């Protein structure tokens, strides 16, 4: 098929699908008035049962923690796959130092940029950590905070230099951190079984509602996710940025 045939085929199909979509849109329960028995049950019960005030965290790390386990392992698998894809060609040996940028000129950063990055970097990382720590109380959690911290570290690259960022972001460490985060999560499932409880059952003391350290196992899982996500995303960024360096003779940094 060339592009035009393809579009014609797709158009005809769209004509067949569109009425079906319209029927569904008309029949779906009205927006803003859905029956939500599951969500309501959680909203009613979780605060008292798990001593956390962020229901999304309660769902993510307790009621449906098994989903989170799968999700984290998906991240691990995807990062591993990306590493295979990108590192396979370069070889493992070179991946722990900054690849040569060839004959590219090193661009000087203006002092204002450096200064701004030096100010914002700690702010962003602190904010990320705050988001991670307050998972049980206010919006946020290991996943969001981890992503924030990971993107924050890029300011090092922007403000200082690639090689400094590369030296600090030692890939082996993040490999291991990522694996460790995943192991923590699986163990959160398995260890309660040793005491006769169910897989992923929250057996730890729950602590005080509205306290930072409340929620029992939720805290541990949150930490595991935070570590795995931070390390995973830093690794992804690392490999993609390394890729921009790996070839010689490019004209543009």
């Amino acid at each position, binding site marked *: 098929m060339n592009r035009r045939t393809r579009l014609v085929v797709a158009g005809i199909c769209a004509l067949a699908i569109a009425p079906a979509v319209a029927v569904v849109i008309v029949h779906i329960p009205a927006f803003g008035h859905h029956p939500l028995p599951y969500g309501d049950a959680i909203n009613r019960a979780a605060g008292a049962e798990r001593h956390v005030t*962020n229901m*999304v*965290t309660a769902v993510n790390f307790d009621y449906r923690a098994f989903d989170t386990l799968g999700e984290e392992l998906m991240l691990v698998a995807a990062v591993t796959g990306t590493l295979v894809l990108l590192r396979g060609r370069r070889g493992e040996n070179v991946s722990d130092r900054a690849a040569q940028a060839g004959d590219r000129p090193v661009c000087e950063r203006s002092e204002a940029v450096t200064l701004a990055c030096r100010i914002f970097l700690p702010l962003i990382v602190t904010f990320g950590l705050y*988001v991670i720590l307050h998972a049980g109380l206010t*919006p*946020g*959690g290991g*996943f*969001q905070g981890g*992503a*924030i911290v*990971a*993107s924050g570290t*890029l300011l090092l690259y922007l403000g200082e230099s690639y090689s400094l960022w590369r030296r600090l972001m030692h890939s082996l460490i993040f490999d291991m951190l990522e694996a460790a985060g995943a192991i923590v999560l699986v163990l959160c499932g398995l260890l309660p079984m040793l005491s006769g409880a169910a897989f992923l059952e929250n057996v730890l003391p729950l602590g005080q509602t509205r306290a930072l350290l409340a929620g029992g196992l939720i805290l541990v899982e949150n930490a595991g996710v935070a570590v795995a996500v931070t390390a995973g*995303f830093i690794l*992804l*960024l690392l490999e*993609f*940025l390394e*890729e*921009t360096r*790996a*070839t010689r*003779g*490019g*004209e*543009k940094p």
Partner: protein
Amino acid sequence: MIVLLILMFLLVAATGTGVVLAREPRRQALAIAVNGVALALLFVVLRAPDVAYSEIAVGTALVPLMFLAVLVSLKTDRPKP
């Protein structure tokens, strides 16, 4: 409230269309970031601050960055014919 919701939905639809229509990949990376911001705003209005956070971190920072990195290396890469 309803007006705000409708506006946000339309904004998301518009920026999403923009992502598709930005055929030049470098501009598209920017369009993705804009779409991410629009989505995050919609999520706030839909009372989902947790999701908004992660959309901001992932959709407007990490994903466009990966796109840009790939575009740069596609450009510098000289494949053997």
